[in-house]
């Protein structure tokens, strides 16, 4: 296909403007022809005759620009006609004309400042709606849980254990490894700084307090949010797309009871266990590093730990765990149920679930910190 073989020439004839079109008028070569046609502006009262006799090829886009030119000239009160069109070309232009319809008015671009305010406003209101939605979902889940407690037979044991396995047992390697490494890093960095004051032994306090109070549970919660919270959204969301949730409702099954409750209970049970495990692995990493760079033996480390770090530090970390588990499971399940229609929506809600649950975990952690410092532990 020769790309530039379409041409257009103009000539004056008998007091009218004559346009000769020829060659291939096809989509790929239309940019210049379109620009040339748009420039045509005959003097008022002069007729325009477009001669199509030289056309060898015409496709819909070529026919469109010819049709549009004629239409626009006529709209300006200029007589315009097509001459010498081959029957096939005339038929195509005719078919195009039948499909010409007044376009919708183009969307106006708003003022950028207004658009920015609009965006912020929507984000803020959306955030509030999210909080409201989560609270009402919490209420719904609580009511369903209470109802299930009244008839314990309605708690689904098999899915519960399956979720415990998938969220807890299979997360052990990754949580163990990451906590161990964080313990190593804390001990190494702490030792490096504290050595300058001759206070290397306080490395044990640093590792112990930060691991037990904050790092252990935060690491476990963030990994679970990324691994299992997102999985909950994807599982429930896919069911939503397949209309499985609607099918459940028509079969008289409550999706909250069947899908949400086992997942929430599973995470509330699993996350404290993972937090303890994460604490242990972090301390192990810290102890090994202290031994390596500070020559503090494991026995010394344990003794120092017992003396320096109150048992409350452990409980402070652990108390938070079920709350985080509840948050992660609720957000994951709620986002899954929010999925509508398409597979794309599953992806979007999964991302939201992870972002929202990690955000909530850290905010709640901060609230706990304030609370604990107010009560003095």
């Amino acid at each position: 296909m020769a790309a530039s073989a379409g041409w257009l020439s103009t000539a004056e004839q008998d007091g009218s403007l004559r346009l000769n079109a020829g060659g291939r008028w096809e989509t790929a070569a239309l940019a210049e022809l379109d620009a040339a046609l748009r420039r045509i502006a005959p003097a008022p009262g002069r007729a325009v005759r477009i001669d199509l006799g030289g056309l060898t090829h015409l496709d819909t886009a070529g026919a469109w620009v010819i049709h549009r030119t004629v239409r626009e000239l006529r709209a300006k009160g200029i007589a315009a006609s097509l001459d010498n069109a081959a029957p096939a070309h005339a038929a195509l232009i005719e078919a195009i004309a039948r499909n010409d319809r007044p376009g919708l008015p183009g969307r106006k671009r708003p003022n950028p400042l207004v658009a920015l305010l609009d965006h912020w406003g929507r984000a803020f209101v959306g955030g509030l709606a999210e909080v409201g939605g989560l609270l009402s979902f919490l209420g719904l889940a609580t009511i369903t849980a209470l109802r299930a407690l009244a008839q314990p037979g309605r708690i689904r044991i098999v899915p519960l254990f399956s979720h415990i396995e998938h969220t807890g047992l299979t997360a052990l390697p990754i949580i163990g490894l990451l906590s161990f490494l964080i313990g190593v890093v804390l001990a190494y960095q702490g030792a490096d700084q504290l050595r300058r004051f001759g206070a290397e032994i306080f490395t044990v306090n640093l590792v112990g307090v930060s691991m037990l109070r904050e790092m252990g549970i935060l690491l476990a919660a963030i990994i679970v949010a990324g691994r299992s919270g997102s999985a909950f959204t994807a599982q429930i969301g896919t069911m939503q797309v397949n209309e499985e949730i609607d099918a459940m409702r028509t079969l008289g099954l409550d999706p909250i009871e069947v899908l949400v409750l086992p997942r929430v209970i599973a995470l509330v049970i699993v996350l404290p266990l993972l937090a303890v495990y994460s604490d242990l692995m972090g301390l192990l990493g810290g102890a090994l590093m202290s031994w390596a760079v500070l020559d503090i033996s494991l026995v010394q480390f344990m003794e120092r730990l017992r003396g320096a770090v109150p048992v409350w530090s452990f409980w402070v970390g652990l108390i938070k765990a079920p709350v985080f588990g509840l948050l992660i499971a609720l957000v994951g399940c709620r986002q899954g149920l929010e999925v509508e229609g398409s597979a794309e929506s599953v992806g979007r809600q999964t991302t939201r679930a992870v972002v929202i649950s990690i955000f909530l975990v850290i905010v709640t952690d901060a609230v706990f910190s304030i609370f604990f410092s107010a009560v003095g532990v």
Partner: protein
Amino acid sequence: MNGAVGNVVIRVAGLVTRFGTQVVHDGLDLEVRSGEVLAIVGGSGSGKSVLLRTILGLNRAAAGRIEIFGRDTARLPEAERRAIERRIGVLFQQGALFSSLTVAENVAVPLKEHTELPDALIAEIVELKVAMSGLPPDACAKYPSELSGGMKKRAGLARALALDPEILCLDEPTAGLDPIGAAAFDALIAGLRSALGLTVIMVTHDLDSLYAIADRIAVLVNGRLVTGTLAEMERMTDPWIHEYFHGPRARAAVAAGA
């Protein structure tokens, strides 16, 4: 109902396709002539869609030769292959619209990728193609998730027609449409074919479509194609073909077409 039927645009010879040990096509031959509407029919799982995908280069054939516009597609350099692909429009079964783009943006994708046209002209062409596909003007700004199944197919058709292809491939174009929508879609294809001089290859289950718009029919039985006109098909002795064209539904379609 025949338009000008001309030279061979697609020739498939001795095609063999396998999935593992399962042979789908066993030495299959097919010729598609310019300007005709060829319908490929066959039972579920007989490999109709696989044949279409193999011709389009989405599946690799185990053996055989596929020529499009006289060129052997297996031996073409990348650039020429792309040039040939641009002359073929494809409508997938579910429309296969890009879900993150509006209908107008979907139709504009091939125009923006493959031409140097100014945006204003692209917008005009998009509106034209959307109109030709029988969609209302307000469909342009909608996302695929907001469209019904029939509208998705029409939008997919508008995108397939964006570059004015010479060959249009349709995979189950009327599946999932109500009878009125399916008949309207058949009429749309027939109208576009005569207005644009398209060659149409369609995979279908829909007997009404066969009787309404197909010039020739290729039936896929036992990994091979039996090709002929409707009248020839009705005289075939192969049990599956006989059952297909003489079953209760076929009689209903004949009665409706008569």
